[in-house]
């Protein structure tokens, strides 16, 4: 158990360092002068040089990377080139919006996808199953920016049910969260469906029926828990990547979340901010892996004893 934890920890560290390394090089490979973004394109050569000196922009990439890692080792993500705000502070301020958006969306799509998946598996090949299959396929092939714009235009602008382009609090997250949930629900309904179909054909489900268990009991006590095991993996990964920023939806609905922060920092070539948001997102993914593993042990006893 301890060796497993240590191996796990080692690989998590390698993953994060690798991400940091790659991102740093990629950002530096982008053409353009950060100083011009900061000072504006009409700034004089002197000003630009001053900025270059301040941020050590003329040092070799490896040297700057070294400094960045030393800074990281001190737990400091640095300051934005553009606003001079501490990167950690910027993330801290924006994270709750992204987290609330993601949380709300997850609740919505799981609450829809699980019953839909279970029922379509139970009544497979019925007209109900076929209808849901079509709806689900449409849902998972919708482009997110398109759906977000369409819903915003009709529900928020035309019908006036939701605010347009500003954000006050949780209530204003309903439409963005519903949009996100609509994009995810189709995939999850199919995932639950496929796993349920497989489990419903298994000998232990037949044995449960042979015992005289009712259909509800067979579906929810015997089948669902087994069918959810693979679903939880996907959910963990998706939640982690969404918490790292819901790019298009935050953008369309003008939400002050991590996604908008990341997009803005890329447009500004704001290296510390890009690094910060990418590392934050990568940490979430690694963390989600841990959480999923723990959940696995709890939901599937075979995995706990194998570890």
């Amino acid at each position, binding site marked *: 158990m301890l060796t497993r934890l240590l191996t796990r920890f080692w690989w998590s560290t390698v993953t994060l360092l690798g991400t940091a390394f790659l991102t740093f090089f990629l950002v530096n490979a982008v053409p353009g002068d950060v100083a011009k973004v900061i000072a504006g394109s009409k700034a004089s050569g002197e000003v630009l040089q001053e900025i270059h000196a301040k941020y050590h922009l003329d040092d070799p990439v490896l040297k700057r990377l070294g400094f960045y890692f030393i800074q990281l080792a001190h737990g400091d993500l640095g300051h934005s080139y553009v606003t001079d705000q501490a990167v950690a502070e910027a993330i801290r301020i924006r994270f709750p919006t992204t987290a609330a958006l993601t949380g709300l969306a997850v609740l919505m799509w799981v609450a829809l996808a699980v019953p839909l998946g279970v029922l379509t598996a139970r009544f497979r090949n019925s007209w109900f199953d076929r209808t849901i299959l079509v709806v689900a396929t449409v849902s998972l092939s919708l482009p997110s920016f398109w759906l977000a714009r369409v819903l915003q235009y009709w529900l928020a602008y035309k019908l006036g049910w939701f605010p347009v382009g500003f954000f006050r609090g949780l209530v204003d997250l309903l439409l963005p969260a519903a949009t996100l949930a609509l994009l995810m629900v189709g995939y999850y309904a199919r995932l639950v469906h496929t796993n349920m179909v497989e489990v419903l054909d*298994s*000998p*232990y489900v*037949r*044995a*449960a*029926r*042979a*015992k*005289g*268990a*009712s*259909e509800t009991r067979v579906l929810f*006590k*015997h089948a669902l*828990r*087994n069918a959810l095991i693979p679903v939880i993996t996907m959910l963990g990964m998706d939640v982690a990547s969404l918490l790292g920023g819901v790019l298009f939806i935050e953008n369309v609905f003008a939400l002050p979340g991590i996604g908008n922060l990341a997009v803005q920092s890329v447009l500004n070539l704001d290296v510390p901010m890009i690094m910060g948001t990418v590392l934050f997102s990568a940490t979430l993914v690694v963390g989600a892996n841990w959480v999923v593993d723990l959940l696995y042990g709890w*939901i*599937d*006893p*075979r995995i706990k*004893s194998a570890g």
Partner: protein
Amino acid sequence: MPLLEIRNLQIDFGRGAKALRAVDGVSLSLEPGQTLCLVGESGSGKSVTALSIARLLASPPAVYAGGEILLAGREVLRMRAAELRQIRGGLVSYVFQEPGASLNPVLRIGNQIQEALQLHRPQAATEAEVIRLLKLVGIPAPETRIKSYPHELSGGMQQRVMIAMALAPQPKLLVADEPTTALDVTIQAQIIELLVHLRQQLGMAILLITHNLGIVGDIADEVAVMYAGQIVERGPAPELLRRPGHPYTRALMNSVPSLDSETDRLTTIAGGVPQLGAFPAGCRFHPRCAIARPECAHASPPLVAVEPRRWVRCPYGNSPA
């Protein structure tokens, strides 16, 4: 009155022109407390027949096309869902071939046995009763075992748990569908011994499905042999084993390895069981039969009562091979 009476049962897979008949006019009966062995190779329709007793076949694709199944005098094929749930477990219980796959992997075995009690004997759904049942089927240290998950037990122990679960509601009929096929040979003998012992102690009837005629002599009162969806021979076990009337029964008996035989080659039946939907014309066994005659390819022999309580589907069965 027989506990179980199957009359001219016909089961199809699929409907209309595409229907394939898996069980074709099977009749069986089983008295309370007796043991009936249903013998045949894989694909002969014996498991389909066994599952139909509690209507456990997934339908579709299975279609109960004809005949009747009377369980304690009640017509199973006409039962409503609620009534079916009562007889499943309550009147007829099942033990399946793969104990590892037939126990739910995420539920503790105590929980699974207790569920069978809750469904049919709620007043007895206690931990003490679960422990008593585990003891009954010979599980050591049952007090700690109730907390185990199925994967923590060996195949033999898993099958004992399945048997305990099946017996929990005190059924009148235990259907054991190849209960030992997936187990080691030494464990097989133990499980059969356990079934014999439990029948003596509890007095339920047993329908044992097997392809191994070798274990039939130890347990059966009656034997029915199935081939390609039909019964080819039926009769009291000692009689049938001493003087098998159908060439298929004889071939099955010859393929049981015996310790005192002189040869060291295993006798097998040439060819394979015909695929569902591709049964040969005439007698379904004639392509593999050692005593087949030209007319066997045309005429389908009926199941004929050769003696009281003794049926054979072969007019030449008693001629020397």
